[in-house]
C-alpha cells in the first residue's frame, strides 16, 4: 500500500496496487476485495498480465462501473502493448480512460 497527497489538499489518499500475474482472471477476487474495503484508489498493474479473455474485458468494464458508483478510482498502470491494444480494439471507452489512453472513438477514414 502507498499513500499519495492530492495537490492542494491536506488529506492523504489510500492507494492499493494489485499486480496481475498471467491471466486477468487470477486477480479478480483480490481486486473485488480491495474495492469493497477502504481503499480510495486501486491501481491494477498489468505489467505481468499475459492474456485477457472476453469475460475479462466484460469484468473490467463492470468493475469500473462499480468503482464509479462507490466513488472510488480504478487505474490501470504498466499496461503492456499487447493488452493496451486489446483495450484499443475493444472500443470500450472506460477501459481506455482507466489506462490513461486517448479515446478509441473512430473518426472515420482520413489520410
Amino acid at each position, binding site marked *: 500500500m502507498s499513500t499519495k497527497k492530492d495537490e492542494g489538499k491536506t488529506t492523504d489518499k489510500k492507494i492499493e496496487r494489485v499486480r496481475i500475474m498471467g491471466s486477468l482472471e487470477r486477480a479478480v477476487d483480490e481486486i473485488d476485495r480491495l474495492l469493497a474495503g477502504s481503499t480510495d484508489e486501486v491501481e491494477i498493474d498489468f505489467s505481468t498480465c499475459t492474456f485477457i*479473455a*472476453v469475460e475479462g*474485458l466484460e469484468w473490467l468494464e463492470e468493475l469500473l462501473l462499480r468503482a464509479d458508483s462507490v466513488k472510488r478510482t480504478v487505474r490501470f498502470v504498466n499496461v503492456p502493448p499487447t493488452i493496451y*491494444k486489446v*483495450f484499443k*480494439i475493444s472500443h470500450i471507452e472506460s477501459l481506455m480512460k482507466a489506462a490513461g489512453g486517448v479515446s478509441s472513438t473512430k473518426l472515420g477514414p482520413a489520410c
Partner: protein
Amino acid sequence: MTAISKEQEQILTERAHSLTRQARLSAAVFSQYSQAQVDRIVKAMTTCAIDNAARLARMAHEETRMGVTEDKVLKNLVASEFLYAQIKDKRTVGVIKELPELNMVEVAEPIGVILGLAPVTNPTSTVIFKSICCAKTRNSIIFSPHLMAAESSNLAAKLIYEAALEAGAPKGFITWVDKSSRLRRLSEILFAHPEVDLIFATGGTQMVRAAYSSGKPALGVGAGNTPVYVHKTANVPSAAMEIIISKTFDNGTECPSEQTLIIDREIVDELISEFRRCGCYICDEAEVEKIADAVIDARTGGMNYRLVGQPANLILEQAGIKVDRHIKMILCPLKGELRLHRLAVEKLMPVLGYVAVDSVEEGINRALDINYGGGTGHTAGIFCEDDGVIERYADAINAGRIIVNSPSSIGGLGGVYNHLNTTLSFGCGTGGGNITTDNVGIKNLLNYKRVPRRKNYVISFQTTKNIYSNPGSIEHLKSLKCKNAFVISSRSASRRGHLSMVKESLPEGCHVDVFSDIGTEPDFPTIQRAVQAMRLSKPDAIIALGGGSVLDAAKIIRLFYDYPELNVQELAVNFLDFHHRMVEFPKDMRTQLVAIPTTSGTGSEVTPFAVLKDGFRKVSMIDECMIPDVAIIDAQFTKSLPREITSDTAFDALTHALESLVSTFSSDYTDGLALEALRLIFEALPETLKNPGSILHRHKLHNAATLAGMAIGNASVGVNHALAHALGARFDIPHGRANGVFLLSTIEYNAQIPSKFVSIPCYPLWVADRKYARAAQFIGLKEEAHAVDSRPQVEDPHFATEGSRGQYDGMVLALRRAVYDLGRLAGQPLSVSELGIDLADYQAALPELVETAFSDMSVRSNPRYCLAPEIVQLFQAAYAPRVRP
C-alpha cells in the same frame, strides 16, 4: 412486406448492438492469439465441419429444396477439408512473409469484425468456409443468412463455433442473425453498424449491392454467365463428361458453372451426340422456346428463381416437354443473334445453351458476347489442346478464372481440379463491380503491414582501368594494341607540340588520323563532324589529347561512333538517383579510348562524365561506359601551361576535391582521394606558380587533378558546380574560374546546419561541417579560435540557421581563409565582380542563372538541400569582391 414498428426497430437495433459488441470484444481478445493457438482452433473447426458435412448438406437441401444433397456434401468437404489443406501451413499471425531481397517483411493485422452473408445456394458450405477463414485470420464474424436457408446456415455456424470454443477460441467470435421475419431488416442495420469493419458478401446481386452501398469496405461477388469454348482440338468425350459433371453439380447452383457452350463446327455433332449418349436432352428449336418460357422470367429477363437448383426432369416438365427417362442436363441450341437470345443469361440449373462457330476468332467473339452479357469478371472455361488458342482466349475474356479442360463449377471452387485457392466467394474484379478477381479467402481477410527496412545502399567505385602516371609515361602508347589511331584534340595541341609527342609515341606502323576542331565548349554538331570523320578513318583506338573539353568530347564521340543509333537528348535526361535513372547506356564500348590530359583540372580522364554545350545550357552525360580505358598522366604536357590556365584548372580540381569530400555520395574510398588531392593542390599550386617549369610540382598538380577526378567520378559534385555551370554557360567563363568565384560562399553555406536536410538513403547523417574541418586538419591548418566567438562577421549571415554554430566553425573558417589566401596568391578571381561582369547584366541574368542552377544535377549530391531562395542568395553573395573571411 409488413411495416416495422418503432419498438420493433428499437429491438432490432439493440440486437445489432449486442451482436457487434460480442464480435468486437472477441476480435479484441483474438489479437492476443499466437499462430499455434489459431491453428489448433482451425483444425478443430475443420474436423467438426467434416464430421457434420452430410448432416448439414441434408438439412440445407431439405430447407431450400435446391440442389443435390450428395453434391452439397462435397461442397461442405471442399469448404473444410480442401480449404484446410491449402491454409493449414500458411502464416497468418505476426510476420507472415519475409522478402529478404527487398529487405522487407509483411506482418498480419486482423480486419476485426466481419459481417458475412451466406447465400441460399450454398448455405452451409459458405458458413463453414467463412468461419474457418475468419478463425485463421483472427477475425470475428457475424453471419447474416438467407431467409430461406437460415436454419441450416445458423446450425452450421453454431456447430463450428462450439468446436472452435472448445479449442480455445474467444467467446462470441462467431455469431449469427436468427431466423425471423425481421432478418432482412436486422441485416440492413448491421450493414451500416459502426462496429462492423468489413462486409463479406456472397449472395444475390441485391444483397451484394446493399453491402457495397453501405459505405463500408466490402468483399463482394459479381453475377456469373460462364462461356465455355470447346475447340476442335478438345478431347470430345472427355469434354462432354466434364461439362455434364460441372453443370449438374448441385443442379447447377454453382455460379462458375457453364451457361453457354461455344463449339467449333467441326466437332459440334460429335459433342452433341456424346451429350445425348450420356443422358442429356437436346432440344429442337420449338422446345428451346418452351424451355426459355419456363426458365426465364419474362418480367426481368433473368432466370426464374423458382427453378434454381432444380433437376432437369422437373424443368422439362415445367416447360411442357414430356420425357420418360432420367435426364442429366438440357441442351438448347441458341439460334439467331446470340447476344439477344433469351437463354444467353445465367441459369443456375441444368440448362445449357450452345452455338456452333467456324473459327477461333468467331469462337472468342461469341464467348465475349456471353462474358459481357452479365458475367464480366466472373468465370470462363475452355476445352482445348492448343496452348496458343488458350492464350488468345485468356487474353480476350474478362474473367477472374478461366478454367482449362476441367469442369468450370468445381474447377472454380479451387483445390480440386487445379491449384486455385479454395473458395465459395468468387471475386469478379471491376468487371463485376468488385475490388478483386481473387478466389476470395484468407488472403483477403487480413490487413498487411509492410515493414521495409532501409535499403542496403551499394557503394561502388569505378575508374579508368589503366592509369600511367609520372613524367614520360606517354611512352606507354608504344605498347598500345592499335593499328589505326584517331587523335581528337584542339588546335593548340599541334602548336604546343603535343600532337607530335603523341604521334612519335604510337606503335610503329600505326596509322594516325587527327580531328583537331574541338573548341573550349564543344557542341553536338562538332561531335557529329568528328564521328563522320571517324567513319572514314575506321580507327581501333581513340586518343583524346587536351583539356577537359577535348576529353569530354572524345567520350561522346566514341559513344556515337560505336552506337550511332543513340539519341543525345535521351542520354542527357536528368536523374535523381543513378540506380533508378531511366536512361540506358550501352554496356560495352567497342573502340578503346586513351585519355591524355594536358591540363591539371577536370580529371575527365578518369570520370564517367561528359559535358556538352547546348545553347545557353550545358548537358551532362554520365555513365560508366564513358570512362576511358587508359589514362596517361604525364606532366610534360602541362609544362608550358600559362599561369592563368594553371590556376583556373587547379581551382577546378580544388572544387572537385572539396565538393566530393562533402557529397552525399562520398565514401571512405572517395574521401581518401579528395583529401590527398587537396593536400597536393595546396602544396603544389603555389610552388608551380612560383616555378612554372618545375616538373615535380606540375606532376603533383597533375596527380591531384586525377585523384580529385576519381573522387567526383564516384561521389559527384555539389551546388558549387551547379552555380558555376550556370554562370559559365551564360557569361562564357572557363569552368575552373567559374568554380572559384563561388567556393568561399558554398563552403560556408554547406557548413551550416541545413535549413532542409537531404533525403537520400546513402546519407544518414549530415556531416559536411566536420568533413570540412577534417580537410583543414589534413592540410595542416590550425583552428581559428577567433571565429568561434565572432560568428556575425561572416559575410553571408543568411546561410546560417538558428543554433548552427558548431564545434567545427573554427576549422571551417581556417579552410575558407586558406582557400582565400590560395586564390589571392594565384590571382584567381574569387567573386563574380572580379570576373568583370557588370552588376546590371548579372542581376538581369539572375532568374535564368537560378533556374539553370536549380535544374543542374550537381545539386542533388550536395550535402545541404538547396532551396531555390538559397540559390538566389548564393548567386547574390558571390558578386561583391571578397575580403578575407
